[in-house]
């Protein structure tokens, strides 16, 4: 079972991202589960959402304390919340930032295997295509690119299903940008 924890702030679509993550996995025939941390958080407050992917029925409903992957949608959380708490030693971390992982989270880069800590300028991509700071789709696409657990097309399709029309398409385009960005990065390409 793959367990993913998503961190962000209220209004950034963290819960939606977790749901779309589960939908992407579902579209590929996996069992998946997504749920928020059930707070009464208001816009701007730290928000946590969880997702699980497995090839058999997911029965547990406990929160994820030991994630295989952590998605950080808002870099300003890094100093405020222990977002990487419990992350597994071979886990993945995807952080929304234009700066490199070595600059943003140098200690985590040292702790996890090479290529497992990645940054992606998801908000910039979202502003380009959606016109609003909604980094959910590019963050999921980045996770897909890093882990190969689900395909870019599934991420795109999940957003297009949830938001039929222009918004869904814009999310899909944003996702493609992030996917290429990470693939390029992992192939040793230089991001700029």
């Amino acid at each position: 079972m793959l367990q993913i924890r998503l961190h962000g702030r209220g209004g950034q679509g963290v819960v939606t991202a977790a749901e779309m993550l589960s939908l992407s996995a579902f579209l590929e025939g996996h069992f998946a589960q997504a749920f928020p941390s059930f707070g009464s958080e208001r816009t701007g407050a730290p928000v946590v959402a969880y997702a699980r992917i497995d090839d058999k029925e997911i029965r547990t409903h406990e929160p994820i304390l030991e994630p295989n992957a952590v998605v950080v949608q808002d870099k300003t959380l890094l100093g405020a919340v222990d977002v990487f708490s419990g992350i597994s030693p071979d886990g993945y971390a995807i952080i929304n930032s234009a700066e490199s992982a070595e600059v943003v989270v140098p200690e985590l880069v040292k702790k996890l295997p090479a290529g497992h800590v990645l940054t992606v300028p998801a908000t910039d991509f979202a502003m380009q295509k959606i016109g609003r700071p909604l980094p959910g789709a590019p963050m999921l696409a980045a996770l897909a690119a890093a882990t190969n657990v689900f395909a870019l097309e599934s991420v795109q399709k999940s957003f297009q299903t949830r938001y039929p029309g222009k918004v869904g398409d814009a999310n899909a385009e944003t996702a493609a940008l992030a996917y290429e960005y990470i693939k390029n990065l992992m192939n040793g390409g230089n991001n700029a």
Partner: protein
Amino acid sequence: MLKQIEGSLGIAEAVALCRPGAICAYPISPQTHIVENLGKMVKTGQLQDCEFLNVESEFSAMSVSIGASAGGVRAYTATASQGLLFMTEGIYNAAGLGLPIVMTVASRAIGAPINIWNDHSDSLSQRDSGWLQLFCESNQDALDTHIMAFKIAEEVGLPVMVCMDGFVLTHAFERLDLPSQEQVDQFLPAYEPREFLDPKEPISMGAMVGPEAFTELRILQQRKMLKAIPIIERVTKEYREITGHHSGGLLDCYNCENADVKLIIMGSTVGTAKDAVDELKAQGINAGVISLKAFRPFPYDEIRAAIGDTKNVVIVERSFSYGARGILHPEVSRAMRGKDTNIYTAVCGLGGRAILGTTIKGIVKHCLDGKFCDELTWFDVDSKVINSYLKDAEGITLPEGPLPESVLLDTLQKVRA
């Protein structure tokens, strides 16, 4: 049809498949998404021959449901926590009138202190209301149980409360298998009320009954409840045959053969516990899970059979009764009368504190290590929080770890001394 959707949407879809005539809503977390979805279905015309009413309180939500049910249509509403308490007078009334209303309770704690998160104290506060109370362990179970609930309610002639854990289930996005409209129509025929307010054949409902017949009416009400047990079993069987879904029932056993300890659990913790006992099995520890689905009527015989000769039983409860102990314990004790089963209560998961796999494993080990010394033990307690108060107020500190009732009693003796 398989869908990856939020639990609340699944429930809304399931309710819509049952062709209700009246849906009433008053917002309270965490049930809101269910009625929001249903309201949309009525408004778009997806759900036909149904009216959706936004009312001004839960008291009216139940009252409109009473009126609609008495008027001869399927009536549905949903609530939780404070809302359930606010409609309590109507809840008892609906049962007394024998109206087959179906209501979701997205189980949530009751304040003060105000708390929006899950436990079972709201649903269980309605223990004696005369409603059937069915608990659900997963969203699939909840979805299916709602469809069964209409049939059970209508056959028994009593309202049914479908209790599903607030947030944990209502807000979880999972794979759900929705039966088709044809399957549901085959299972649940068009509604033919046994009696309803009809100008063609006028009846009076809700007459005043004095001491000369009140007891007898209560006996008849209890008889209906007892009748509900075989009806739940039969309806479950029918539903399973049509859909192939293993949902509903009075209770469900997991890994119970040759188990050294059996846990009795209601609600979403069952899923977490199943994973936990699988892990324990890998370590050579044999623990079973009895998922209790029907709390009212209480399946005494089935619980007795499910426990069998197992010596140790732990009831994991997300609620308790102040000044007494666990709410399920007396029922399980009654079921096991005459047998020397050790029955314990572990209270945890109140007000949304997550019950983790480690919690369940801890409870099992606590039991097998013979550490249960009292009937009631509190698990996952943060003694720092308690001590920060007690130390200043009374100069007392409690130990860390599971907290048996006797430890609390001991501290009181210290105060008396």
